[in-house]
């Protein structure tokens, strides 16, 4: 018993080796496309003068979440600009938003499928449990052989980390639709698809939005951690502060993350509450 150790790690490594070689053309192509996308979005956001960006963000907050959040956004982002953290903040925002987008595009349909078919949920739910309990850092490592060091790997691991709430809450939202309402839809001869789009999804919308909110928050936190595998942005600043033992810089970068998180959180929360 003592001298035999199950080579679980070796198996995983050889599996990843095989996969990364086999999938290399695909991952390389994907990596190029993604990188181009990230750069394009980043450049576009950076091309706008910071002050105009700040006003636009404040305006969006005001429209969607009210005056208080608009003021927080205005002063918060102005502080970020003043601290000279504008560029890393924009790049963090880009990564977080792209990851959230990808996570939603994959997660919401998966959530719908697992609400509709028991078989799907039986496969998906245990995987979600695994994804959510596995320490976040672990996802960083296999991303590298597939996508190399850099923002694409960061997005890959962020998507995996941030997707579970989108799946879970979509599934929950649909399952929570009262049976009497789906029965009424059935009684009037609705097809499965009509029932989904006319009754279930609109009624599940607030819950799904709560999932989106969670996904954004998780994506933001993971994008910061992903600095360790070469994501730039605020996480990069924190990482540098750790290596150089500069608590001041670390705190400043951390504060910027908090400001971005608060504004995004409030906006998406209000968006969910509005749909009721």
């Amino acid at each position, binding site marked *: 018993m003592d001298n035999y150790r199950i080579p679980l790690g070796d198996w995983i490594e050889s599996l990843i080796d095989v996969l990364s070689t086999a999938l290399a053309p695909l991952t390389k192509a994907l990596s190029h496309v993604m990188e181009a996308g990230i750069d394009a979005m980043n450049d576009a956001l950076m091309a706008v003068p910071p002050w105009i960006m700040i006003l636009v963000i404040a305006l969006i907050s005001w429209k969607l979440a009210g005056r208080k959040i608009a003021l927080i956004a205005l002063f918060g982002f102005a502080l970020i600009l003043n601290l000279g953290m504008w560029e890393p903040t924009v790049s963090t925002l880009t990564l977080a938003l792209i990851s959230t987008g990808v996570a939603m595009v994959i997660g919401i349909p998966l959530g719908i499928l697992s609400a509709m078919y028991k078989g799907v949920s039986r496969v998906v739910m245990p995987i979600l449990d695994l994804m959510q309990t596995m320490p976040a850092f672990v996802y960083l490592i296999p991303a590298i052989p597939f996508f190399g060091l850099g923002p694409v790997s960061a997005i890959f691991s962020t998507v995996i980390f941030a997707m579970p709430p989108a799946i879970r809450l979509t599934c929950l939202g649909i399952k929570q639709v009262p049976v009497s*309402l789906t*029965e009424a839809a059935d009684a*009037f*001869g609705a097809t499965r698809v*009509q029932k989904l789009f006319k009754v279930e999804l609109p*009624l599940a919308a607030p819950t799904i939005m709560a999932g989106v909110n969670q996904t954004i928050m998780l994506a933001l936190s993971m994008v910061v951690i992903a600095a360790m595998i070469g994501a730039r942005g605020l996480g990069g600043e924190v990482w540098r502060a750790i290596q150089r033992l500069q608590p001041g810089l670390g705190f400043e970068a951390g504060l910027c993350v908090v400001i971005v998180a608060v504004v995004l959180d409030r906006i998406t929360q209000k968006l969910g509450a509005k749909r009721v």
Partner: protein
Amino acid sequence: MELLKKGKTKDEILARTGRPVGVADVSFHVEEGEILVIMGLSGSGKSTLVRCVNRLIEPTAGSVVIDGVDVTALPKDKLLEFRRTKFGMVFQNFALFPHKTVADNAAFGLEIQGKDPGKRREKALRALEQVGLAGWEDKYPGELSGGMQQRVGLARALALDPDILLMDEAFSALDPLIRRDMQDELVTLQETMRKTIVFITHDLDEAIKLGDRIVLMKDGAVVQEGTAEDILTNPATRYVERFVEDVDLSKALTAASVMKKPGVTVHLPTDGPRTALRKMDERGISSIFALNKDHKLVGVITADDAAAALERGEKKLEGAVRTDFIAIGPDTPVQELMADMALTFCPAAVVNEDGRLKGVIVRGSLLAGLAEKGRAQNG
């Protein structure tokens, strides 16, 4: 089903297979244009039965035939088509969509059929008008009272102009006064619509009032089928007999059960003769109850007396108030009222112990109530 055929009881089957028997061996037919009431206490299988008709619950055996078409044998797409065009369903808990406006709720069936929005709205508005909800189309169901919500439910079914209305305890969740209004309204609507209606209820009074024929169920089986008259006068089994008796004893007709909402009243000392006359005129009534500022009933004013007071040039109503009307408590049995009501000039007032007006009894509603009960008592 095998077990049922072998003559096992439902309890035995539940114990052996773990599956309860909902409805078994029920056979009935519905004529075009009639209201068939399926009645039974909760757990008797009536809601399961009505869901078998449009296969919301898939029957394990047996068949449902509508206009010569075996619904139970229809493939999926034909079944959907059938549900869309043949059936309108009204549910006990309304089952309105909270995210849609009243008009969009009423138009739901048409939306499912793929009708264009303009036509949908037009038909939905017409259906809403039929059920007395014109002007409410842009509200949300949450802003409506229970009675109004169920009117929307009814409009949603009517908007499709279906051949068959399935009404599953449609009025059971409403409070008694509203329920009576809705029953009256359904009867009125049915006079012009002539739909085939399958109406589920647990309330014998409702069954008698609405049903052209009644199917009485117990434990998933039919115990008696026939007109209200049949069931009340010739109960087929001891169970029916007890059911009918129970209903009679527990629901002995009291003033509260036949009264109507008070409607308009005049308020002393603020209202004058002119106001009183106009209020009566609006409602087409010949007398009106007068309340004091504590909302207590002080008397009744007839149109003649109010007109006389106006001619005398009086600004106040006090001179026209009469107190020789009938006032009774809500628990008074109405039999005691009969003789007096025949002679009186105005409705009887139902007054609670605080002297507040709770409702009025007009001759018409009293006789209607008694006619129902009279039949019941013969049985």
